[in-house]
Structures are given as C-alpha cells and as structure tokens.
C-alpha cells in the first residue's frame, strides 16, 4: 500500500466516521495499556489523535512487554491502583478479569451506540470473543485465526497442491526444502513455524492439535472434558500433534527453536519459506514494501486437518468416520484454531463514569467499519479482519494493493476458518495464561529440545493442569469453560 493510499483511507475514514456519541470530552484522559508498537499500539496512537481532534479526549497509549501485559493490568485493577482505564489484550484473558469483577459490562453502551453496527462483526467475534457468560465485556480491534500460508508460485511450478493434512504438509515442505525460493542463490526452507519458548509456540501447537482432538464442533473444546474438567491432553491425539510440530522443524531454519513470530515473519517476507503458519498478518504484510519478495506469490488455506481423530473414551487416535468426525470433508477432520482470539479492549470498571464513556467511544471508533476496514488491510498494524464487511468485500483489499486473486484467496481462507462448524476456541478461563502460556509452553519447549518424550510431556501437562484447576476451583472452572464454548445448561 502506498503512503498516499493510506493517507486517502485515513482522510476518507475521518470524513465518514464519528465517535459513538458526539460528546465533548475536553479535559478527559483515557489511559490505555497494550503491547509495544508498532503492532497494535501504533494504530491506537494514530486513531487516538483523530479521536482527540473530534472530541477533545486525550488518548494515552502506554506500552509494556507482551509477557507482562496481563499481569500489569490485573494487578493495577485488582489492587485498586486504577492507573489504567483500558486494557487492549488477548480476548481470552478477559475471563479472569471478569471473574474478579474488574471489567465494565458494555451491553448498555452498545445499545446506545448507533455507529458500531454490531451485527457487522462476524458471529464468532461478536458472540465468543466479545462476550463472557452471554454479556459483552470487550470490543474487538483484531480478529485472530491461524492459517496455513504457502508459496503459490513455487507450488504451481512444482505441480503441487496446498497441503490438506499434516502428512501432506511434510511432503510439500520436504519437496521445497533446500531449494532457492527467492532467487538469491541460497538454499531456503520448506517450512517456517515459530518454536521459541515464552513466545507464541503454544498457539501453533493448538492449531496442530485441534484437528486431531476436536471433531464434534466448537462446543467440544480441545483442552478439557466438558463434564469433569479433567484435561483432555494425555492422549494419542496431543502426542501425535507434538510429534508433528517437532517434525516440521526438519524442514525449517536451523535455529527455529529460537524463533518467535517476528523472526518467522521476517523469513516469510524475505521469501525464504515455502510453507508457514501464521495469523492473518501475512496477507497484508505481503503487499508491504518489506514483503516485495513475496508480493502476489502467496496463497492461504485453512489449517491442515487429520484423517485420524481422538476417541475421547479410549484416548486413542482412530480413522475418521461419519460418527467420529461428523464435520469431516473427504475424510479429513478440520478444526481451525482461533489462536489468541484477537486483540480486544476492556474497560476498567472502577474508572470514572465520564472516562468509561470516553473509553468506550474510542474503542467503538477504532472498531467501526470506517476505520477498521482500512486498518486491517495494513500489515504493520497487526489488525486482522473480524467484520463481515471486511470479509465479504474485496474492494478495500484491492485498493490496498492485493491482487483480486489473492484477495479472494486470503479472505476465502479466513471465511473457511471462521465459518467452520468445528472451529476450535482458544482457552478462556481464569488461569488461562498458566495453563497454556506457562505449563503447555514449557513442556512443549522441553519436548522440542529433546528433554522429554511426547508421552512424558502430555502426562506432565495433565498433572500440572489438574493442580491449577484445583487451585482455582474445579466447579467454577468447569462452568466458565463450558460458557466460553457456548455451552449453557
């Protein structure tokens, strides 16, 4: 996208857009805390300047390292410090904050907001991401799914199809590995999947595991048994997913164990990866000047599935059939994983009433189609599509620099994931960070480093998760887990 196009987009957005209420917020300051920019934070800063020009409210965007973001918000709000009015973080983290009574419910604000066009937000984000226990607590600014990206030009040249299963993934990655994919004379990599500890590896793990574990629809979940809250991890499905994840490293960069999402994206943008797993960012990043090596060369599809799936009664992997995998297509069980769920804004319940209203109006302003439909087409914002108008209309994407073919392909992959009846939800219960960000992440890292086997890893996870569940209270955890999957009694 050229600077003039971005500028035009911003100017036209300013002309069309307006805050939720036309109040004068002069003298009101809204303190926002989120991850360091430019991703996520920088666009909030820019939209904040526009909002200030329109309403007089000062929008201050504060940044802390991603790993400390949740802890900062929780301690600030729980201890009554209340120096933060809005947290912009992973939607899944909100459950713990809501459970502690720290987040402002937003249904009342939305009812009085005629600009947000809430029905335009895709059902998954509107009903699962923004709501907890049936009530809205979050405003989405980014929609997250992981997808499989492939080098369309290379696959076409080699006469290969995008992989549908993990076996096919290995075959395709193996075929491309060691070839020069970007014309610089150096051997490149068949597969790029981030594997660094304390980063994002456990999200990729969830994406791989989901197709092996969940077969009965979104309400089944991939982490726990719905009726007992016992972990659903120490089984052949998760163990196979662990092995698949490790095996992809054979076709990856040598130091992939130390690569986080930023490292992987750098390699993808420089044209060094045949296949890659990522959120929606690769699409807009491929039209960014830094992605010149892959412009109009990428394709995207739903995450690979598995012809074998978990029998929850036996803990064994079995061949898919109509009973075991009712949503399978051509015998392959797909379960696209809503990893992370997307960035969303939550308002501190204990902020002043005027600040809360200004905070809501700002989040609504960022979320409104006039702004977000432009923002999601810009790679560096980190914002991925979450509105129907963003997914159904390719015009904005083509304007941004997508070719019509890639725009269709990219949005098609997102819609295939988003509308899938077996879409897998990320963990949204109190302690979610401990379950996945600490325990799953650590055991995964030990397995990848060769310290333990897949069987030991899943056993350790199950034991540690049981401890966390007992600590938080099994009954309340089970209730919240089921609610997060849309299960109500």
């Amino acid at each position, binding site marked *: 996208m050229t600077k003039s196009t971005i500028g035009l987009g911003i100017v036209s957005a300013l002309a069309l857009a307006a805050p939720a209420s036309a109040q004068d917020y002069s003298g009101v300051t809204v303190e926002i805390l989120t991850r360091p920019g430019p991703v996520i934070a920088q666009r909030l800063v820019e939209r904040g300047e526009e909002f200030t020009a329109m309403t007089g409210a000062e929008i201050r965007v504060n940044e802390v390292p991603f790993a400390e973001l949740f*802890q900062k918000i929780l*301690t600030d709000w729980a201890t009554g410090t209340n120096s933060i009015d809005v947290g912009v973080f992973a939607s899944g983290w909100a459950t713990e904050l809501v459970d502690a009574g720290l987040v402002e419910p937003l249904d009342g604000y939305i009812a009085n907001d005629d600009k947000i066009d809430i029905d335009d937000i895709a059902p998954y984000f509107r009903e699962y991401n923004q709501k907890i226990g049936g009530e809205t607590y979050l405003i989405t600014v980014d929609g997250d799914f992981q997808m499989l990206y492939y080098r369309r030009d290379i696959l076409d040249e080699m006469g290969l199809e995008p992989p549908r299963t993990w076996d096919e993934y290995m075959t395709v990655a193996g075929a491309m590995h060691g070839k020069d994919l970007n014309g610089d004379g150096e051997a490149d990599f068949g597969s790029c999947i981030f594997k660094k*500890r*304390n980063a994002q590896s456990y999200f990729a793990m969830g994406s791989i595991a989901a197709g092996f574990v969940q077969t009965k629809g979104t309400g089944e979940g991939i982490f726990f048994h719905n009726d007992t809250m016992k972990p659903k991890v120490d089984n052949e499905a998760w163990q196979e997913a662990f092995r698949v994840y490790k095996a992809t490293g054979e076709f990856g960069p040598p130091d992939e164990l*130390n690569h986080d999402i930023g490292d992987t994206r750098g390699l993808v943008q420089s044209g060094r990866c045949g296949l890659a797993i990522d959120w929606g960012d690769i699409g807009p990043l491929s039209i960014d000047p830094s992605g010149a090596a892959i412009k109009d060369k990428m394709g995207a599809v739903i995450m690979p599935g598995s012809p074998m799936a978990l029998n929850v009664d036996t803990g064994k992997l079995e061949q898919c059939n109509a009973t075991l995998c009712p949503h399978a297509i051509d015998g392959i069980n797909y379960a696209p994983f809503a990893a992370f769920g997307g960035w969303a804004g939550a308002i501190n*319940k204990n902020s002043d009433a005027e600040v809360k209203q200004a905070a809501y109006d700002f989040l609504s302003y960022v979320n409104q189609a006039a702004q977000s439909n432009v923002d999601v087409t810009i790679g560096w914002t980190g914002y991925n599509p979450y509105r129907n108008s963003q997914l159904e209309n390719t015009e904005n994407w083509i304007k941004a620099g997508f070719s019509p073919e890639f725009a269709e392909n990219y949005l098609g992959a997102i819609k295939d994931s988003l509308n899938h009846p077996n879409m897998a939800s990320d963990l949204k219960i109190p302690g979610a960070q401990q379950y996945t960000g600490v325990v799953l992440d650590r055991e995964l890292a030990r397995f990848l*480093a060769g*310290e333990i086997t897949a069987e030991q890893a899943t056993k350790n996870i199950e034991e540690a998760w049981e401890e966390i569940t007992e*600590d*938080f209270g099994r009954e309340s955890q089970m209730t919240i887990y089921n609610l997060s999957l849309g299960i109500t009694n």
Partner: protein
Amino acid sequence: MRPGTPRAAPSIGARERLSDWIDRHSAQVFIWPAVIMILVFSIFPLVASLIMAMSRIRFRGGTYKVRFVWFQNFEKQLFGSEQFHFLGTFNGLGLLGWAIGLAVTLLIAWLAIRYLRGRVTAVGLVGRLFTWGLSLGLGWLFAATLFSGHPFGTLGTTLFYVFVGCGLQFVIGLALAFLCSLPIRGRTFFRVVFFIPLMITPIGVGYAFRMMADTTKGPFSPVWQWAGLGDFAWAADAWAARFFIVIGDSWQWIPFIFVVMLAALESVPRDYVEAAQVDGATSWEIFKDITWPQVLPVAATVLLIRVIEAFKIVDLPNIMTAGGPGIATESMTLHALFAWRSLDLGQSAAVAYLLLFVTVVTCVSFFNLVVLRRVRA
C-alpha cells in the same frame, strides 16, 4: 553548703562523665539510624516475601485473597510437580553418577572427620553443617542428573553460570590485568577498551549476542555460512546455548575483574619485585611468591562480589534464549520471574528464597573456608 566550699568539682566530673559517655557511644549513636533503616528496608521485604512464599495469592476485585499453605510451595519445587524444573529429572543413577556421588560423600565425610578431630566451636560446627549439607545435596544432584545422563533444572543451570562463568571471567580478567600492568605499548588504550563492555546494559549485551549468533539472518550470517556453520543452531543445543550465555556474560563482566585486579596489581610495591629480580627470581616465581599473595585479599573479594552477582543472572538467558531450548538455560532468577509473570507469586517467592539460601551458604562458606583461611595464613 557552706560558703567557700568548692562547687565546681562534682559538676565538672558529671560533665566529664557525660563527655566520656558520648565519646564512647557516639559511634553507635551515629550508626544506629543507618542500621535501623537497613533493617527496616531489608527485613520487611524478607518477611513479606516469606509470607508470600508460604501462600497462594489470588487477585480479586479491588483486593487480593491470600491462602496460607505453609511449605507447599517449597515442597512443590523440591519434591512435587516442579521438581524437574528446579532440581532436574531423576530417573535413576548411572555408573558415573554413583561414582561421583560416592566420591563427594567420602570427601565430605573426610572433611567432617578432620574438622571434628580438631578444635570444634558451636558456631563453626553449625556453619559447616550447612556447607556440608549443601555440598552433599549438590553433589548427589549432579550425580543423579548431569552424570547420569538426565537434564538438571534451574539450580544446576545457575551453578553452571556461577562456577564456569565466574571461573572463566576471573582467569581472563586477571590475565588481562597482569598484561596491562606490565610496561607494554598502548596499555592505556587497552585499559579503556577492556573497560567499555562493563558500561553496557545487560539487555543490550543480550540482544547484541543473540543477533551476532544468528546463523540465518544475523549480521555475521555470511561468516557463519562461509565457515560451514550455516546449519549449526547454537540455540537448539542445550550446552551450546549455555556456553553462549556464559560467553556473553563473560564479555560484560571480565572488565570488572580486570579493573579491580589491575588496581591491586599496580599497588604491589615495586621494591619487592625489584629485590626478587636482583636475587634472580623468574617471572613465574615473582608472580607466585610476591605478587599473588599481595593481591589475594582483593582477588578473593572481587570473586565473592562477582559470584553473588552471578547467582542473580537473568537478563542474558531471558533475552538470548528465553530460557530455552526446553529449560536448559533458565536460571533460578528467570524461573522466579516466569512464575511471577504468570502471577504465581507464591512459587516465585519460594524460588527466590531457595536462591537466597544457596547464595548465602555458598558465599559464606567461600568467605569463611577459603578467604579467611588464606588471609589468616
């Protein structure tokens, strides 16, 4: 009182006594406020963190809930589900493990018998019991993990950073200081150059070393490729990653040893050295018999300070590897930080207390059994 009776004598005596009392106690009067301040600001956090180490803390709306669990957090680290993380994975002892474990046991038993046959004091015995206990525990820990082919935990990794890192830094720092104390050309330039790394923030050092070591897209990637190391991933190998962190840490801390030891070496009286030279002593003999004894107290002190600091290493493993691969490069401080980040404050405090125990016992033992003994000798 009758007229003419001298009155001054008793009052002068009282003033003198007061003056004497002030003279005798003024040092304490001046020092006590500082002592009280230090106690308040060190005892309070110690007590507060001890309470945290024995609790489970959960943040709720507007407050937090504390559940007292006594020693459960410590038990979890030492015997429970976190044992592999803190101590290591115990899957039986190998032959080498048995040999090392028994050798350590015999050595400590011999030291104990030797001590008990000599002059025994209550304080000395208690201190040695801690030292022997910790040494025995660590000996069997490494016997059951490292020497039996099983991974050790954050305690072992921290000790690796401390002993290997500090040893390396001391030897190189001392050697550089010795060279710069000699009348060689450009030594002033070398002194400035060697001192620079100490000024850089450890986070900067971490990022710089991570970038330099990136074989795929780092600035030295062509060099790695040219050297045939393009496929070598230091971060994917436990020992390579640990050594790389030690190299980064050493790059930063060698200057500290260098500066202090250079000052010590330059303070050795020249006439001693010149007298030895006149008597025909070799350079090695001069260093061993004159220079080294003179700088020994400074060397022991600088090493002690460096060891205390090294026990707290956190920036480099956090930046360079995030504790990976697996938990191979995770230090105890990083272990505590990760627990704290996930708001498991009890576990975090428990790990911090265990670190404090190991650091205190190691450093006090080193000071009493090595430094004081050599100084007294």
